[in-house]
């Protein structure tokens, strides 16, 4: 386990370095005040944001770029090789229509990929506590008759009983048709599916764009395919089939035509019956499940269902991505990661006193001893760059937060580093999720992983350290290890 013990010790330079750091922290603190952060920077889900919060996508975007490349290459080849011939021999309307279709497809793709699918913001701590109280209250003496388990609520919608489940990650009861996407770690309203081709979840707010995208893409592929065949046929009348074939990209769209058309057909069926992919796959409203099972959300006829899905009002985003973080805004409960704590410590003040630094050093040493006892190899191989290990004592904290790109080289600055950590690239907040199982778990992840830096605890007085780190169980062992580490570092 790399604790940096073999690194040349930086000595216990806590006092002098701390004051230097404190002055630098003050200035950076002042700078922080001038550039207020936006809410997307502390968003607890596993999403990526671009253009200062305007664009929101899932974490894995590789397949989206593939989609984009495939569309552009196919269309590009069509416009380059087939259109000149077709425009001159048949009609110039062909490239025009092709162009319009192409632009529409790309527009819909971008809209589907970049917009918020309908993410439900996580509960604030007060809300979560209130819900927990209600759940506990309902756990009272069991009465006669059937009572659903406490973390499920039943509602009757249009005569059909629907179960609302409690989401452990977001700490809310999910509205009907909402589902938690494990890839993005968000609850999404009217969750359809997570589409890797589009690089985003498909939910209430972007379902119509997704549908229009696949519909227009199927028209485009059929269009290109048809006219490429026409081109080949016309050309083969003059030059011969094989040489005509090599001049045009036929095969490229042949396979995609069937799969895209199939997908469009499937989604047309879903829209007309007002179901989501999720519901269809699970057979939620299938009569095979129960004789009197029916879809309570359907409007009854196909046309109304289609109109409602495609032309209904577009609800606004519930996560205010580009809003500024207000100092008194309650931060949502993040499921075992430290991002909310970073924010709250940032907002508490941060004059790094010498005393604070010494205190925080002790805390870190104590916490560092914890991984000594419960060593967890996962942390070490963290995906972020590991600390260069400039200081022996910087090591332990780095091991706890492997994805923080850089901590100040002197450890005592860690108390003040609470602020610096908040300056990091917001992506690092997401790194924590990699260590927590993407499935919902009722209990927080393994303790050492969730400890961003115990130094925070000295600043965020309102935070309950017991939630993160229970010193009670490790007293004498810690004392010894602390003494040991301090001696080693002072060599």
């Amino acid at each position, binding site marked *: 386990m790399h604790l940096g013990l073999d690194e040349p010790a930086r000595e216990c330079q806590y006092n002098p370095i701390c004051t230097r750091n404190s002055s630098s922290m003050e200035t950076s603190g002042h700078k922080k005040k001038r550039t207020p952060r936006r809410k997307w920077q502390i968003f607890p889900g596993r999403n990526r944001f671009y253009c200062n919060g305007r664009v929101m996508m899932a974490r894995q975007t590789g397949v989206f770029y593939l989609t984009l490349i495939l569309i552009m290459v196919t269309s590009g080849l069509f416009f380059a090789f087939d259109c000149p011939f077709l425009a001159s021999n048949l009609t110039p309307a062909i490239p025009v229509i092709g162009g319009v279709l192409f632009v529409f497809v790309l*527009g819909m793709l971008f809209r589907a990929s970049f917009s918020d699918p309908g993410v439900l*913001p996580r509960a604030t701590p*007060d809300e979560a506590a209130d819900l927990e109280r209600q759940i506990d209250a309902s756990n009272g003496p069991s009465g006669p008759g059937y009572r659903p388990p406490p973390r499920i609520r039943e509602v*009757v*919608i249009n005569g059909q009983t629907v179960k609302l489940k409690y989401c452990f990650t977001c700490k809310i009861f999910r509205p009907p048709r909402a589902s938690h996407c494990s890839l993005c770690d968000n609850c999404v309203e009217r969750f359809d599916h997570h589409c890797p081709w589009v690089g985003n979840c498909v939910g209430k707010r972007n379902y119509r764009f997704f549908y229009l995208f696949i519909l227009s893409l199927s028209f485009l592929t059929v269009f290109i395919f048809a006219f490429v065949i026409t081109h080949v046929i016309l050309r083969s009348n003059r030059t011969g089939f094989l040489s005509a074939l090599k001049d045009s990209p036929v095969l490229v769209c042949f396979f995609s035509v069937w799969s895209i058309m199939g997908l469009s057909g499937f989604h047309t069926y879903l829209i007309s019956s007002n179901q989501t992919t999720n519901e269809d796959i699970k057979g939620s409203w299938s009569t095979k499940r129960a004789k009197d099972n029916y879809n309570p959300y359907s409007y009854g006829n196909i046309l109304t269902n289609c*109109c*409602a899905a495609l032309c209904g*009002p*577009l609800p*606004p985003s519930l996560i205010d991505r580009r809003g500024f973080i207000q100092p008194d805004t309650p931060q949502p409960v993040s499921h075992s990661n430290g991002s909310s704590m970073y924010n709250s410590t940032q907002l508490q003040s941060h004059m790094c006193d010498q005393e604070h630094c010494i205190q925080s050093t002790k805390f870190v040493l104590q916490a560092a001893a914890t991984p000594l006892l419960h060593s967890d190899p996962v942390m070490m191989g963290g995906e972020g760059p590991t600390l260069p290990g400039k200081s022996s004592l910087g090591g332990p904290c780095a091991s706890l937060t492997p994805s923080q790109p850089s901590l100040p080289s002197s450890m005592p600055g860690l108390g003040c580093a609470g602020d610096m950590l908040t300056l990091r690239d917001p992506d690092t907040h997401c790194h924590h999720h990699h260590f927590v199982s993407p499935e919902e778990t009722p209990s927080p992840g393994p303790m050492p992983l969730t400890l961003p830096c115990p130094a925070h605890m000295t600043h965020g007085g309102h935070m309950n350290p017991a939630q993160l780190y229970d010193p009670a169980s490790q007293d004498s062992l810690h004392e010894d290890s602390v003494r040991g580490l301090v001696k080693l570092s002072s060599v």
Partner: protein
Amino acid sequence: MLYPTQTHSLQELQQQAAVASKVYVQRDYNSGKICKFQTKFPSELESRVDKQQFEETMQTLNNLYAEAEKIGGKSYLEGCLACMTAYTIFLCMETHYEKVLKKIARFVKEQNEKIYAPLGLLLTDPIERGLRVVEITIFEDRSIGSGR
């Protein structure tokens, strides 16, 4: 001696009073997926506000949300127009939903100023809580007791 209620303004509440507790009014999903909040009167507010007044506020709020989500001729027109312009039209104009949300924000603010703040309560616009709950903050009464 009764203190005039006007002295207890919204800003004073937010700046000076301490939060005693928060009450959450959850969504009512029994009418389907439309946004509707339970109109049941929470017991913690019994001592503070008139039941009928509260239920009226909630009912108006529900009606406003129903108006936002209404599917009818106008919303279809807006949807079709948006589709034909490839949704670029929303760069210039607001959706109907957004307009109603602004109306709701004004309504909540007005209710707070006129009715709830003088009683030491504060309604939070549900959009700030993701349309999940209506959060009602109950402030401690100590500032009312102090001499002014």
